[in-house]
């Protein structure tokens, strides 16, 4: 019975759907997290009576043939790049990106990674680093005696030192943007890597055309909407159950056939 395997693909698809939803819910409070969505596609169709095949010598054609599908598969699980809310933390090294772009981070391996989680901090030698201690590009050192650090919208980092009236600029944060942000490879730890699908990173300064601006003292929350996720979870669970009902119904039909000859 083909309906058994069709329902099985449906159950597998809904299982994946629940996995994606649960990951969204689990990351509801993850800084800079972008929610994901599973997109499904129908599988190939079996043409039992081909549409458009001739039904007589007179040239009449079958207007709608018999096409039986073979189930469903996951088309893609894509990330929805929607701005999250900004939440005030009061921490002077926290930055939120309003608009497009990622902070570039130097991994210990020397590779570049990209993040929107702007909970930054200072390292022992005064450099601006992520919460894992990775240096934020292009590498900004804050003088040890700085009393106040301000980061403006354009990403300019200014430090005020004792005895100075005007703060001095100590560095400039950079943002990287991608043609296809959904094509970035998520690494966990809020980090993303460039892929052939995402395109090469375009570096620019915050506030310039095509880049977002920086907001100091804020972080970007996850863009997960709990109500939407729970609704999606209910629908996924019910869809899973319905597919299991198809399996039991097909099973009953089969057993009716098997029991024909007692």
């Amino acid at each position, binding site marked *: 019975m083909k309906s058994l395997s069709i329902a099985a693909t449906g159950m597998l698809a809904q299982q994946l759907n629940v996995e994606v939803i649960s990951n969204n819910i689990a990351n509801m409070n993850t800084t800079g997290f972008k929610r994901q969505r599973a997109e499904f596609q129908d599988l190939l*169709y079996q043409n039992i009576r081909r549409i458009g095949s001739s039904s007589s010598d007179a040239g009449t054609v079958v207007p709608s043939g018999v096409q039986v599908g073979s189930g469903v598969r996951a088309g893609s699980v894509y990330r929805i790049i929607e701005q999250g809310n900004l939440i005030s933390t009061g921490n002077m090294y926290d930055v939120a990106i309003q608009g497009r772009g990622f902070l570039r981070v130097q991994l210990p391996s020397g590779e570049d990674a990209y993040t929107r989680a702007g909970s930054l901090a200072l390292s022992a030698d005064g450099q601006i680093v992520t919460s894992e201690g990775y240096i934020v590009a292009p590498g900004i050192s804050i003088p040890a005696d700085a009393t106040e650090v301000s980061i403006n919208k354009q990403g300019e980092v200014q430090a005020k030192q004792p005895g100075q009236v005007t703060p001095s600029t100590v560095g400039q944060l950079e943002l990287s943007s991608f043609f296809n942000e959904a094509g970035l490879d998520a690494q966990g730890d809020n980090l993303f890597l460039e892929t052939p699908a995402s395109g090469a990173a375009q570096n620019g300064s915050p506030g310039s055309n095509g880049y977002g601006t920086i907001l100091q003292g804020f972080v970007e929350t996850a*863009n997960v909407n709990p109500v939407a996720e729970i609704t999606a979870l209910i629908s996924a669970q019910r869809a899973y159950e319905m597919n299991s009902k198809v399996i039991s119904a097909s099973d009953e039909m089969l057993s009716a056939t098997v029991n024909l*000859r007692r």
Partner: protein
Amino acid sequence: MENTFLISLSHLTSLRREMEIIANNLANTNTDAFKSEEPLFREMISPTADGGSAAPDVTFTTDYGTVRDMRIGDLLRTGNRLDVALGNDGYFAVQRDTGKAFTRDGNFKLTNTGELTTSDGYKVLDSVMQPIIFPQGSELPEIAKDGTISVGGVTLQRLGVFKFENPAAMKKGGDNLYTTDEQETPVPSSGVKIIQGSVEASNVQPVLEITRMIDVMRKYQTANQMIETGDDMVRKAIDQLSRIR
């Protein structure tokens, strides 16, 4: 006597087909822009072997087509700027290596060169069947109700939406795509209603499908019962005939 078995067999075969279609509908309850289908059955009349005008014809059942429910599915907000839903009928055109295909699934993506594609990487075409390309370093697009794509206030191309004279002749090709024969020519749709940030949900109605599933299951059992009864009759006939000698 065999006719009982054969008619029941034709019934069982069509019920199995119907079950497969229901299973496929239910498997696709969360597939974007999926259209549910239903099989069509008809009588197939066959004269009996012993002939004679008095003898009634035997009718079998056979499936001769599937109808697609073309009602528009619910709009599902995703918030993704590259997701578009069609608020009325029509299809987006995509370019595959084997030719053009059509889809209502508006889960579009950008490639690393700025081309608009489906999630399988097929190029999405504009109103004059050309690929849609975004300039380097551009912001996410605004897609107007009529499909006009603009980036940062600059109007680019218009998303192509096409209609067909006979939508029933469109074949489902899997991957949420539809294909057509050469005879069917796509006509640019007028009065397009495009909704950005949403996708069209599947139009499968689970309650309906489950009800139909139960119905099919019971009918299948009845048809089996019919074969069993016929079998009993044959067995009894053999039994009794062999006793009278």
